């Protein structure tokens, strides 16, 4: 079975500080993809970052970066210089081969001014 676990239902961070959201997953596939999506109150799921499992280098997108630990099946998201607009639900998702995308239950991030 493919599973994604986000152990932090809620997190908060001061504006301009750094926060890390945790995600662990389980899959028997050797080739898979991992994603972080952001869902603001508008409900629109927005892609934040994507990581291919075969790549050892951690993906980065501006203020967003991941710590991908394949052996530990861990895929955490680091947000640097947090901004008020970063406040949202964040979902970790696993695409294990030719099967449906599997989502965690999300982490609600609050940014304190």
């Amino acid at each position, binding site marked *: 079975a493919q599973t*994604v676990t986000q152990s932090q239902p809620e997190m908060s961070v001061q504006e301009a500080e750094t926060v890390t959201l945790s995600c662990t997953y389980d899959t028997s596939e050797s080739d898979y*993809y991992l*994603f972080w*999506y952001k869902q603001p109150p*508008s*409900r*629109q*799921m*927005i*892609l934040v970052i*994507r990581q291919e499992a075969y790549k050892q280098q951690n993906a980065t997108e501006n203020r967003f970066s991941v710590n991908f630990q394949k052996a530990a099946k861990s895929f955490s998201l680091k947000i640097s210089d947090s901004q008020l607009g970063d406040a949202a639900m964040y*979902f970790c*998702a696993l*695409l294990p*081969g*030719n*099967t*449906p*995308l*599997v*989502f*965690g*239950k*999300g982490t609600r991030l609050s940014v304190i001014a």
Partner: protein
Amino acid sequence: GAGVSQSPSNKVTEKGKDVELRCDPISGHTALYWYRQSLGQGLEFLIYFQGNSAPDKSGLPSDRFSAERTGGSVSTLTIQRTQQEDSAVYLCASSSRQGRTDTQYFGPGTRLTVL
């Protein structure tokens, strides 16, 4: 269009009625997905269309749920004889490549409330 669009944005219906939810994927995207997001939960896969292939319906929760995709573009998700447990946000996504490995882009969803 510029992104995935869905209509209606919100739908309130009475238990036992049928509803239709519409999704317009990004132009040129061959793959289309439907997901359901219940309150406080992550996204649950419902159905997947890829080009002219038979859809993957493995996520549909009951035979009251069905979906079609006309002309390889617009898709309609139909829920017959709605129940209160069907209340959720229904999200549609599309991606550009064959297979499922490309990034999925989501629409804004339809919030369905069954009274």
